[in-house]
């Protein structure tokens, strides 16, 4: 339980650099407090001790003291130079782009962030990245100046029209972190807000597998869906590659002529297949007992459609089956196992001009 939930005093430290930033921040803050107290105590002390009417000894007052002047010039100067050196070294590190970083392109426009991964996955106001991986943002604005601000990573840089700017950060914890615009950019400046989702490497891989789509399951073909139903319902137990006593094989059945138990012949079209699934006893194939369960109300029409497609597909193959989907890939560091070569390259402009594919997630009032 975080006692500061209601009164937070520090943003999350979501990158290693943010921890070192905070060390500097709190050092300067401590100096601020020390000097404020020092001056405050001196002011109040002198003001009270030497208030008009007090009996304090006022003899020997002096109004020049070069030693004191030197003291309070040199001590602040030394402290200031110390802070300057510390801070500058840290800043140089923040501005030096790592060579092995995962690259993401950012376009700022009034009033949203477009983000484009190297493999073509596009996001709006959201950025999914793997944990413990250096991320480098290459940024440009389409209109006015924006500022990409990631407070939990202590990372910020302006996004300027007409030139590329860069920003890098290395997330060290998974979670959802704010992604803000920190440069006034017009009417809806305060809604140019999104989130960085830092995923574990495994979650990130599956996110990539799903084409970068977190909200819907991976789109699958009807035949794939049919295969899933086929397997989950155990259709293959009776309808195998060869006819068995329990049921006929369905390989190549689509559009073939079938002899029925009542002596008629029917064409095994989609309509026949559907009836044979939902109401198998309507037409029994010659030579078989009516033992198949009734699936009326047990399967959605989509499932039935899928099954039919799956059975159709089996017509050209020895056994029902579909091709394996092609996984998208992304350029990631060496320790990151890429599964297959990049399948498509589209330029950022094409991608971005084609518009958003995902609904923008707007946090709702709680």
């Amino acid at each position, binding site marked *: 339980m975080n006692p500061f939930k209601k009164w937070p005093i520090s943003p999350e430290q979501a990158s290693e650099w943010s921890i070192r930033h905070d060390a500097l921040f709190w050092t300067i803050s401590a100096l601020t407090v020390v000097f404020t107290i020092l*001056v405050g105590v001196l002011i109040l002390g002198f003001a009270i001790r030497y208030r008009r009417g007090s009996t304090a000894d006022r003899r020997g007052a002096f109004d020049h003291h070069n030693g004191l002047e030197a003291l309070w010039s040199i001590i602040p100067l030394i402290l200031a130079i110390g*802070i300057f050196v510390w801070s*500058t070294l*840290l*800043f140089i590190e923040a501005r030096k782009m790592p060579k092995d970083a995962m690259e993401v392109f950012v376009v700022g426009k009034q009033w949203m962030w477009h983000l484009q991964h190297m493999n073509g996955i596009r996001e709006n106001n959201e950025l999914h990245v793997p944990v413990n991986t250096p991320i480098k943002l290459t940024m440009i604005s389409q209109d006015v100046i924006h500022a990409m601000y990631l407070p939990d990573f202590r990372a910020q840089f*302006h996004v300027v*029209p*007409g030139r590329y700017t860069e920003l890098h950060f290395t997330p060290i914890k998974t979670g959802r972190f704010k992604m803000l615009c920190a440069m006034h950019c017009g009417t809806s*400046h305060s809604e140019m807000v999104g989130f960085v989702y830092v995923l574990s490497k495994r979650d990130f891989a599956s996110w990539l597998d799903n084409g970068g789509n977190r909200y819907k399951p991976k789109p699958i073909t009807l035949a794939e869906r049919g295969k899933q139903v086929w397997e989950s319902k155990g259709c293959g137990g009776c309808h195998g590659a060869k006819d068995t006593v329990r049921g006929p094989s369905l390989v190549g059945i689509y559009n073939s002529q079938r002899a029925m138990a009542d002596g008629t012949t029917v064409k095994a079209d989609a309509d026949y297949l559907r009836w044979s699934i939902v109401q198998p006893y309507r037409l029994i194939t010659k030579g078989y007992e009516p033992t198949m369960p009734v699936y009326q109300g047990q399967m959605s029409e989509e499932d039935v459609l899928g099954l039919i497609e799956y059975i159709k597909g089996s017509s050209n193959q020895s056994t029902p089956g579909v091709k394996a989907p092609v996984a998208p890939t992304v350029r990631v560091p060496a320790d990151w196992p890429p599964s297959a070569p990049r399948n498509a390259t589209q330029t950022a402009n094409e991608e971005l001009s084609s518009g958003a594919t995902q609904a923008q997630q707007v946090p709702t009032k709680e």
Partner: protein
Amino acid sequence: MSATTVIEQSPPTERPEKNYLNADHTLRSWIWTVDHKRIAVLYLISVTFMFFLGSIAAAVVRFELTSPWGQMLTSETYNKMFTAHGVIMVFFFIIPAIPAVLGNFLLPIMLGARDLAFPRINLLSWYLYVAGAALVLASLALGGIDAGWTFYTPLSSLYSNTQITLALVGIFLAGFSSILTGVNFIATTHKMRAPGLTWFKMPLFVWAHYATAIIMILGTPVVAMTLVLVIFERAFKFGIFSPELGGDPVLFQHLFWFYSHPAVYIMILPGMGVISELISCFSRRRVFGYEFVAFSSIAIAVIGFVVWGHHMFLSSQSVLQGILFSLLTFLVAIPSAIKIFNWTMTMYKGSVWFSTPMIYALGFMGLFVIGGLTGLHLGSLATDVHLTGTYFIVAHFHFVMVGGAIMAFLGGLHFWWPKMFGKMYSEFWGRLSAMVIFLGFNFTFFPQFMVGYLGMPRRYHFYYFAPEWQIYHILSSAGATILGIGFLMPAFYLTASLIKGPKASSNPWGAKGLEWEQTTSPPPTENFHHKPIVMDDPYDYDAIADNDDFRAHWGKEPVKYGGDN
């Protein structure tokens, strides 16, 4: 010379009834006046009016922010509100407040001069200010401006559909008003000092205004031309700042901050001059390290011109530029530290009188220390990455501008009020207002440091994605209510003092300086009845004598200063 002799000394023996206020009562005599004192009063009325307008905008902004979803405005209107607050407060209140009111009134008197060097130009500067203010208010009335007071391009030049051109013309005129004031101050300080008034006998108030005037003359033309370029790009599509027209958006920031960073010192340096006078007078001590305080003003003015890039660490300027600007920024902190320590030491072995102006001055010192030290967070490169563009920076510059410059302005106004209007205000209400403002100010702006460090960007209307920030905004808005009450109090009791306040003597504080010792309250139109000659060092106070005198009168009768209190 001791304070006792001050009491015995009756400055001008024959005191004529005529002074600059009652010399002529016609409206014409006010609006065509070339008397620096009357122009100062005109400025006082104008900047107070603008201050209240800017405060209303601030109140609306603070009210909106009490909820993460806003309270009543659209984002468009909210943006216009904070822009109005910034433009009015920066260009029409805080820049002219101390120089054009207190500086205008006091600089010639402190120098023993009859008027500023160019009285008509002084009047022209007020008219330019009024014209500029009228244009800016017209731009607000015609729909407002939404680009923020910094007017960053290309938002201000190509993308904003609001009344920016009109507002920029207004600010341009106000800039010339500022330049003319600066010219006047420099010429007057060089050429019109009374016999015997050498540079190192000048009050530190004059030194501070001299340094301010240098900045006004060197910096303001740059921002004026920059704003003209923005107008050209807006109106005629000149490609200067917009990349789509072939310009460079970051160039604007360089030109803008080349003025607007030194402008920060235009705001604070005159305040420092005021504080030197107040601390010295109410401690009954010569300002400690006079030369250091004087030269630190000049050092701030000079170094202040080469630190503008610290506003642009993340703007895409090179890392090397960032490092140099950061180093120079740290250096400019030193003269400010020197001032603070010297003021503190001025009270050592003094005879400290907790009058209204002194309470304002002590409040200034506390708040300015915090404002100045938090500048280290922002001047240091690494921490600036996280803090720039957030409420931390808003809190920082309000500590310097409000906690510093406005506290100094109010302290100075209370100090010289008897001199300006010949009336005493209620000391009770005065002290109370100083304390209420100090309390309300901290209450308002300290939470903003917190919410800024948590990552809340400035100029955000909504923050529904981070409801944990709300507690700090509620605290800040509650504090702003107290602060608002604190600012309203002087408006009432100072106005009341004009009507029924007791008559002020020529030197109600027992202060040193030509304006107190050599002329009446209020001064005559020609400032002095005789040409003053300066013999003494400035701040020739005697704390021991003052304290003994006070103790001798303790419980019997209030200590009175001057001839006819």
